[in-house]
């Protein structure tokens, strides 16, 4: 039997709470391990979903920024009108560069895209049916909408193409991921809470005799609950710290692998650095871990406090 001599001599609120809370954690080793592992799994999955979501957003922004807006010019516009349009676009807030793409260039790039099927555009060679356009690059993606609507009001603009299939797909993916994160998050929250609540129920059950003794001596419920709350908080906090470490290692490993792949290299796209993900997720983890621990233990106590 382990002897704790003299603890009572130094009793005060804080040391009592902490020492009893830790002693609960260690007395119920199996339950503590199960809670830790479940919480780590739950928070890790949440972190992974969150990291993917954030990166899809980040990649989208980069793709969007590299795409720019293509403004098609009316065929009947004169050179002078075209020049006026160019200078007017340049004046719009949020526009960084404007590049002219003539009808010939448009045809060339069309030929390039369809080079596997030359028949498809064979007849169009002399007709210049591909309109001339301005490729407008933006300084800031958040201004895209404003820029687009301003351009739409200008004269000699045939139409505007801002989003293509890739963009739409990415957009759908990122929305899907956002919903998935919320669903995963809610599910894991419930699971983690149930598990930790059961763990503490085991501790409480093992100590029900002590609890009833405390009640006979006149201990209030909040006094009895204290150490169990601390137990939950400790488990939640430790789980949060371990998850932060795990996700850092895993994220760094995976991102390094993906970034060195050919596609991303040629597209000149980067992913978020792990420190940025961590900054967003670690506060959530600690709050979540501690919160789950606290509420989990509060729920588990109810039954045993009625003596």
């Amino acid at each position, binding site marked *: *039997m382990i*002897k*704790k*001599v003299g*603890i*009572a*001599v*130094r*009793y*005060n609120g804080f040391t*009592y709470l902490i020492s009893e809370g830790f002693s609960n954690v260690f007395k119920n080793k199996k339950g503590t391990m199960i809670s830790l592992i479940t919480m780590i799994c739950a928070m890790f999955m949440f972190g992974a979903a969150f990291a993917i979501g954030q990166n899809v957003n980040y990649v989208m922004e980069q793709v969007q920024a590299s795409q720019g807006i293509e403004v098609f010019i009316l065929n009947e516009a004169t050179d002078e009108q075209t020049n006026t349009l160019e200078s007017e676009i340049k004046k719009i807030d949020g526009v960084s560069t404007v590049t002219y793409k003539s009808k010939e260039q448009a045809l060339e790039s069309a030929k390039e895209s369809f080079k596997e099927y030359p028949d498809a555009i064979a007849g169009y060679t002399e007709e210049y049916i591909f309109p001339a356009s301005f490729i407008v690059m933006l300084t800031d993606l958040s201004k895209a909408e404003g820029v687009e609507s301003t351009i739409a009001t200008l004269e000699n603009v045939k139409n505007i193409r801002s989003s293509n299939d890739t963009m739409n797909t990415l957009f759908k993916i990122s929305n899907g991921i956002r919903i998935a994160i919320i669903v995963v998050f809610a599910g894991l929250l419930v699971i983690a809470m149930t598990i930790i609540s059961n763990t503490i129920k085991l501790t409480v059950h093992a100590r029900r*005799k*002590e609890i*009833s*003794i*405390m*009640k*006979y*001596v*006149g*201990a*209030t*419920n909040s*006094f009895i609950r204290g150490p169990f709350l601390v137990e939950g908080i400790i488990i939640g906090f430790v789980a949060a710290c371990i998850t932060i470490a795990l996700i850092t290692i895993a994220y760094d490993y995976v991102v390094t692998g993906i970034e060195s792949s050919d596609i991303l290299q040629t597209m000149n796209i980067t992913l978020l650095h792990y420190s940025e993900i961590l900054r967003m997720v670690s506060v959530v983890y600690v709050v979540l871990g501690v919160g789950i621990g606290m509420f989990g233990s509060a729920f588990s106590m109810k039954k045993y406090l009625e*003596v």
Partner: protein
Amino acid sequence: MIEFKNVTKVYTTGTEAVHDASFSIDKGEFAFLVGSSGSGKSTLIKLILKEEEANSGNIIINGKDITYLKPKRVPYLRRSMGVVFQDFRLLPDKTVYENVAFAMYIVKSTPKHIRRQVPYVLSQVGLSEKSKMYPNELSGGEQQRVALARALVNNPSMIIADEPTGNLDPDTAWDIMNLLDEINRRGTTVVMATHAKDIVNTMKKRVIQINKGIIVRDDKKGGYSSEV
């Protein structure tokens, strides 16, 4: 001090453990609760401790009607009484000293007061030398003395004991009874449920006898049963 007015207790199982009980125990009295097994002694004690709720009637403790006491206030009611049970109910992983100090800690006594008071009550029950021992290292009589020290440490106005000698041999039982008598002489009210005939007969204290939930006898200086 303790007053029951027409108290009836029916458990959810349908058992009527106490039926229309009325009695009053004054400050400084020593009262035995006697009766055969299942007669309702423990139920009376649980009603005093507000561990069980009465179905009808009123219970007044220290001038306060506790019949409708809010659950939140129950701990404060219990602090006004020291309780002792047949099975000692000590915290197994705390020393003798810690078990007693714990009761003071719960009521938020200052560390200084705890350091002075705990050795004092331990000396009262004759356990000064064993203060660093754990309950499983003590005899039954010694464990009950720790429980008594714990019950006394916050200077309660009454001691409520449910068969405190039930698990002890006769000699050890008398040690506990002498302690209770001494505590009572210093002004603390003592209410004790018991089966121990010789103790009741020798002590010549007030006897409240209960039979099938009904109070059938209340003698100022009685014996265990009226036939003796």
